[in-house]
Structures are given as C-alpha cells and as structure tokens.
C-alpha cells in the first residue's frame, strides 16, 4: 500500500467566490500532490461556494489530470450539514468542464471509481484488523 503524507488546505471564509484565491490554492495543492502527498481541502467552515471558485479549484484539476487522479489525490473535509449544497456546486462545475461527455458515460466511470475506492477501503480495513 502506498504510504502518502497529507497536507491540509483551509480556504478562508464561509462563502468562497474569488477565482484568484482559488487559483492560488490549486497551485499549492498541485505542488503537494506532485511530491507524492495527498491534498486535503478543508471545507468544514464553508457554507457556499460559487461555481467559478469551484471551477478554478476543482474542475480545472479534473480537466487537466482526469477524474481518477483527482479522486486518488484530493480529499475533501466537510461538514455534513452544508455538504450537499457545496458538493453540488463543485459537481456542477466539474460537469461543465466535462460537457462534451454524455451524462450516462460519466456516471458509469464514476460508479467504477466509487466501487474501486470502496473495495480498496475495505481491503485496508481488513489489512489493519489482520
């Protein structure tokens, strides 16, 4: 199993809107991933996120590196009470970047990623118990 270090990034503010600040955060996240770390974006204090911010921070990463890379290297720390709205903004921004792909095709590839992730998580758990 790959032993990755984690670096936390915590955007300032409850309502994220500025593309410029999202771009700065993305650059830092990309740098840490490049040296083998996992980037954890802490969204626990975030209540709303504009599509432009979500696009600049998350969707651009997906467009440049792919969904699998994103899913393996970027983790989101979230507060359950706000997560649906925040995640919908992020998902909408990513979807817009993947506009050329059919909805069903995206769903199939994401379902595959989720299944692989769940299987890997359960293997890790079994490994720990053993």
């Amino acid at each position, binding site marked *: 199993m790959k032993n990755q270090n984690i670096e936390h990034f915590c955007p300032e503010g409850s309502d*994220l809107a*500025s593309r*410029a600040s999202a771009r700065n955060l993305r650059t830092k996240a990309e740098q840490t991933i490049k040296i083998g770390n996992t980037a954890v974006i802490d969204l626990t204090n975030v209540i709303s996120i*504009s599509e432009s*911010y979500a696009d600049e921070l998350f969707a651009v990463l997906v467009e440049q590196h792919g969904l699998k890379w994103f899913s393996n290297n970027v983790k989101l720390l979230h507060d*359950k009470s706000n997560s649906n709205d925040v995640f919908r903004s992020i998902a909408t921004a990513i979807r817009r970047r993947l506009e050329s792909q059919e909805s069903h095709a995206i*769903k199939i590839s994401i379902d595959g990623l*989720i299944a692989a992730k769940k299987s890997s998580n359960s293997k890790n758990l079994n490994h720990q118990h053993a």
Partner: protein
Amino acid sequence: MMYGLWEFLSNDELVKENGQLLVPHNYYNPGYWTALVAYCRFKNIGFDAINIVSEINKGYAFTIGIEKALNGLDSYCYERKNSGLNYSELVHLNSADDTNKATGTINSCIRQLFDTTDLSSFSKDLCEVVGELHDNVWSHGMSTGFSMAQKWKPPTSLGYCFEFALADCGFGFLRELNRVGLNCLSDEDSIKWCIEKGNSSKTQKVANEWSQRLPPDIAGNPMPGIGKPVMSENNHMGLGLAKLVELVNNYKGQLWLSSGEKTLTIDTNGKQSFKNNKQKWQGVALACRFDTEKAKCYKKSHDDEAIDSLIELLKNSGGVEL
C-alpha cells in the same frame, strides 16, 4: 416613489453648480446607494458634498456606511442592530481577498433574510450568483466596486421585496470588449454579448499572435493598434451575468443592468428591453429585485445523473465527514 439604479441614471444633473450632489427626500434602495457611492468615489466627491435633504435618508446613509465608504471615517454612534437582518452595509470590493469576505457578508444577510424552507432554493441560488458577481467586479472593476442588499415590506405584496445591487466604475462592457479585441460597436451590443452564457472578455484569444505582449492587468493600451494584453492562465467561463439573468427569469425577479449609455431591464415576465441613460455610466452597475411570494413558486429540478454521481464520488473521496 422608490428611487433605484434607473432613477439615479435618469438624472442628467447629478452634481449642481455649487459642487453638491443633491439627494431629495424620497425612498431609496440599494441600486441607488451603490451607484451613488461608486460615482462619488470615482469623482472624488466627499460625503460632505452630498446634500441629503431628509433626516431619515441621512440617517439611513450613515447606517449603511456611506460616510465610511467615502471619507474613511464612521461617525455613526449607534449600534447597527438590523445590519445583517434587514440590510447589509455597503461592501467595498477592494481586493481579491475582499471578494470572499464581501460575499460572506452579503450572503450571511441573505441567509438570515430567507431562513425558511420554501425559500431555501432561492437563497442558495442567490448566494451563488452574488459570489459570481463579486468576482466579476473584482476581475473587471479595478477596485472601484461597491455592493449592498436590503429587504423591505411592500404594500402590494404579502411577502417581502429584496434587492441586491452593485456598481463599479471600471472599464464597462464596451471598452472592455474592445480592449480584448472584440469589435463591439455599441453599449447595447456589449451588454447583449456579456449576458450570454459562456461569453467572457477574459477568455478572448488575442487576434494576432505576433502582436506586442502586454501584461494582462494593464489599464488601457499604451500602444494602440500594436499591443494586446495576453492572459497567462485563464479559466474564466463567462457564467456570472448569464447566471444572474437565469436567476431573475427563474424567480420572476426584475433586473437593471447598466453600462455606458444603456440599461438593460428585465421585468417580472422575463421581458427584456433597453433604455437610454441620461447619466452615462462609467463601468457596470446592476440591481436585481425579487418578491419572496413570486420567488417561492419556482421549483428547481436536478436531473443530471452525472452530477448526482459526482456528488457521490466527492463524498466518497476519502475525506472526513464531521
């Protein structure tokens, strides 16, 4: 009568011969106040040169922080008890960092105002648009932008009215589009272009790859006809104004969007029309107004299965749920 952005732009003699800007006794809403403050700041008109006739209006001007916005001082000596409840104070969009802060200020006010289940979708969509617009103003408005929001009870509706407005004295649409090499001929055409989804001046490619390179944030072009700005990394999607128009149409709101000599208005039936401004507006000013009774009626549908799957993936990304 209620005075808003349009009434501000309909006044062809804002500054009198004695150098004073007269604000007659009336009822003013955010569109008026944001335009007034952005205009005064741009023209270096201090708070003392604004002649607010009515004591009630003057008190309100102090409450929303006009003195602070223009003179940097705040002599208002009372607690602003209703700040964030009925109105937000004027917010100056001064830097990229301020964009998130300003969005937080206006959005927490919106969430307070519409803290009911039947308005939650409206509140969420509005918050998102406010963020987009603030970022637009920061990107295009060169630190000259102000925004504010206010709720009031109109005599003709069972619900409340709400208005969000912002104004900047940046390039304006026409100058900005021509600056990046789009040959737009009129203010009306430039407004029409800017409200189309996917259109952003920030994404325009330089027509001639061999033209002299200038930094992307340069103000004006010192080498007309030769130099063109070059955007280094640019992911702008042109969503802000298109989202605003969609919001206004979905929730049966009203919009005034002004730049240069024209104002685009959208009424509660979605009808668009253009008016001539008596007061030419340097930059961009807008006001959107909603009636909560009408806003309640819109039911949003989420029917893209890819988005639902993406949400699932994000939730399962291995992050910790608190």
